[in-house]
């Protein structure tokens, strides 16, 4: 993994917020002074259809406008996709895949076509339900992407996300603390295994 130029691919289903997570990641990395790119690939626009989103985070200006085929990190927002989409396709051996699932890493590894690199699981549904009272896997997955890719330090990420949520949820301040809690819970869970 080249820390100067990190490429991330998100797999989710329409309506789950994988695109939003990619855009939020671009947003928060921008604040560290990085060059960023966050974009979705649109297929049929319907709820539940598999969608892909991408991030490039770089120390240098980004000019490439294609999708990402050899990512450093793969984020699987919906574990059911593992059965229908080759999520680790092109994923670098020294990269990592993060799957939103209550299952263990060993169970998930069996389903990942023999991927040799690092595999992490995060139960984003459980974290989200506990922190927010609802299943919004976005915030935990965003925190997981930052924790594993190390595109920025935890403290800085937390600080920037608070500012970002305060802006985004100016009219719904009651959800800010829940989202912040989801971020820290995710970091805590992953730091045990990283």
């Amino acid at each position: 993994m080249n820390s100067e130029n990190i490429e991330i691919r998100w797999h989710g289903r329409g309506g789950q917020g994988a695109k939003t997570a990619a855009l939020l990641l671009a947003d928060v990395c921008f604040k560290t002074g990085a060059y960023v790119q966050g974009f979705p690939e649109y297929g049929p626009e319907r709820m539940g259809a598999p969608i892909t989103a991408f991030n490039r985070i770089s120390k240098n200006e980004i000019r490439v406008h294609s999708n990402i085929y050899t990512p450093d990190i793969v984020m699987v927002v919906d574990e059911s996709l593992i059965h229908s989409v080759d999520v680790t396709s092109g994923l670098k051996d020294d990269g990592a895949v993060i799957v939103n699932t209550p299952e263990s890493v060993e169970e998930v590894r069996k389903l990942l076509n023999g991927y040799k690199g690092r595999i992490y699981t995060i139960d984003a549904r459980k974290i989200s339900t506990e922190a927010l009272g609802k299943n919004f896997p976005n915030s935990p997955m965003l925190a997981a992407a930052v924790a594993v890719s190390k595109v920025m330090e935890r403290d800085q990420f937390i600080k920037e996300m608070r500012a970002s949520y305060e802006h985004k949820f100016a009219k719904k301040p009651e959800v800010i603390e829940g989202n912040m809690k989801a971020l820290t819970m995710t970091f805590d869970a992953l730091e045990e295994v990283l």
Partner: protein
Amino acid sequence: MSVKDRMSGNEAVAYAIKQVNPDVMPAFPITPSTEIPQLVSSYIANNEMDTEFIPVESEHSSMSATIGAEAAGARSLTATSSCGLALMWEELLLAASNRMPCVLALVNRTLSGPININCDHSDAMGARDTGWIQIFAESNQEAYDNFIQAYPIAEDPRVHLPVMICQDGFITSHAVMNIELNEDNEVKEFVGEYKPEEFLLNNNKPIAIGPYAISSYVMEARKAQEEAMENSKEVIIEVAKRYKERFGRGFELFEEYRLDDADYIMVIMGSAAGTAKQAVDDLREKGMKVGVLKIRVFRPFPAEELAKALSNAKGIAIMERTESYNGHGGPLCAELRAALYENKVFTNVVCYTYGLGGRDFTVDHVYEVFEEVKDVTENGKKVTQHRYINLRTNKA
């Protein structure tokens, strides 16, 4: 002073519209340009600009209302994509022939069918002979910068033509990237107040706009319009120069990227030019002398200038993001080859078709094209013209 920010291409153009604060914007939503009128409406609702927004019932109407407002003396614009632009066809011609200096933010999307929402240049290319100036962008930054230059070009008395500011649907319109924004007051100063010489609401000087012309006048009107398009070339360059002095980012009719000693040159438009530049840097590191010529201004077509810039190339790849169904390739290939011939630049030229309906175009595809053009030049390899890049076939 510029401000560093991050935005999608649609956000960038909407922001430029806010800074310019034109008088009237009629619009009808269509993917992937919908966000532009949506964001502008929000700016208006939040009192951040005072443009008169007209929600209309179709693109036929949005362009009609744009022309009507412009004719009345108001600085006007609209935004659209794909079939929306096709529905404006008749009005596009009216805007140009009535010499309306209005602006259209086009977010390039393929035309049907099969129906698809993703990028290619078939919408803009379908409008290439309607008399509009057409300027293409590689990135959100360029879409922003080009939009701010649009009115100074359109409204120049030597030009008086409408301007289409194009960017690639989804690829730049929906991708959030870094951007440098100009200060509001500097943009306002750069674009200036609109002072139309003649307009319908001027009761001191009544005029007619769009009347019938008998045969003894039509050719003269067309010639005047054609001359305005020719004139626009120097105006586009002047405005770009003024923009660079003010804001630091420079533009020409086209960009020459590492062309100086290039044996092989790829000619390309829009977002894919960025991908090609990255590939050129990679190939240069391996010792291959390659470069990219990115066309920014397609109308007016800088034929002579392009031929000159390409005159030392051993091999040229022309990349077409549309299909003309004529058995002879698309408009960029046809016009550029004609320009080369006319200026007696006789070299190896291979035309390729890529990226239709959002088909991805990667650095690997750029390597592939350069390898083939080199093979054609050095070994006389016979190739099929207008081959589709990244096409699935049943053959090997």
